[in-house]
């Protein structure tokens, strides 16, 4: 086989595989976090994030002292300038925060807060963290989440009347 053709075929196969995988995992809130931070104990997907995350919100406030935690939950979104899906995510999360009592949306420019990005191990934008009332990280999603995905991952909340 002509090496040029071979490289072309390999590149297309890699692109299709990567694209399909991304389409599947993008915006999904899952136990990604548990894989990243093995706690040693059993990782039953139900379990909220490890105790170390008591610092998730404290890391945020260290970088953004004026940020306010939502009474029920906080949607922390990391964005960057060269990121088309960040805009979609902003619209979805702002809408959820608007409609549900005690849910706050905080958008953080990843580029301006690289120390925080490293502390929370943010790898790409958009990444959305869902924090509980105490500021612990419950779950996170990389890529633009759909509205239903956000609602399903939120701790019990009530729509505003």
């Amino acid at each position, binding site marked *: 086989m002509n090496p040029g053709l071979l490289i072309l075929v390999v590149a297309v196969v890699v692109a299709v595989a990567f694209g399909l995988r991304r389409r599947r995992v993008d915006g999904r809130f899952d136990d990604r976090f548990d894989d990243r931070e093995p706690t040693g104990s059993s990782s039953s997907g139900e379990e909220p994030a490890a105790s170390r995350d008591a610092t998730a919100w404290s890391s945020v406030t260290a970088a953004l002292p004026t940020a306010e935690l939502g009474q029920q939950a906080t949607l922390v979104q990391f964005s960057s300038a060269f*990121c088309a899906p960040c805009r979609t995510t902003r619209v979805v999360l702002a809408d959820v925060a608007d409609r549900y009592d005690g849910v706050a949306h905080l958008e953080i420019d990843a580029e301006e807060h690289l120390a925080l990005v490293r502390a929370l191990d943010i790898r790409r934008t958009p990444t959305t963290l869902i924090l509980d009332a105490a500021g612990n990280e419950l779950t996170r999603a990389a890529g633009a989440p759909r509205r239903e995905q956000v609602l399903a991952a939120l701790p019990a909340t009530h729509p505003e009347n």
Partner: protein
Amino acid sequence: MTSTTDLRTTGQGIDPRGPRFTASVTLVIFAVALLLSESAPGVAAVITGVQAVFFAIGAGLGVQKTPTGLLFRSLIRPRLSLPTELEDPTPPRFAQAVGLVFAIGATIGFATGAVLLGQVFAGFAVIAAFLNAVFAFCLGCEMYLLGLRLTRRTA
């Protein structure tokens, strides 16, 4: 902190199908260059060189100003329905700059006889252009944050 700027009213948004059309053409250009690279590396170098010029225009002046951007605006967009939403032109413009690096690498490879090097650069360009054209996914944009994390020290 949710200052939603409506690109429709500011007039700064672009039709997201424009950059995807551009990526489709880019994909074809790199595919042709790869297929010719073995038998006619000189021709492949010219093709990727032309693509490098397109990328340079896109990175320097904006994606709307590239030949494919102009073609999309004058011939294709009038035949399509109105876009459901507009997109910020900054991410695709950044992607053009990333593409430029790969196009230059491929051109140097094909032109100097380092054909395999040229093919590897062209192969990565095919991956990125394919993801953009088919999945509307901007690989260069995603690498941006990782690049910052790896290279920039925190103040």
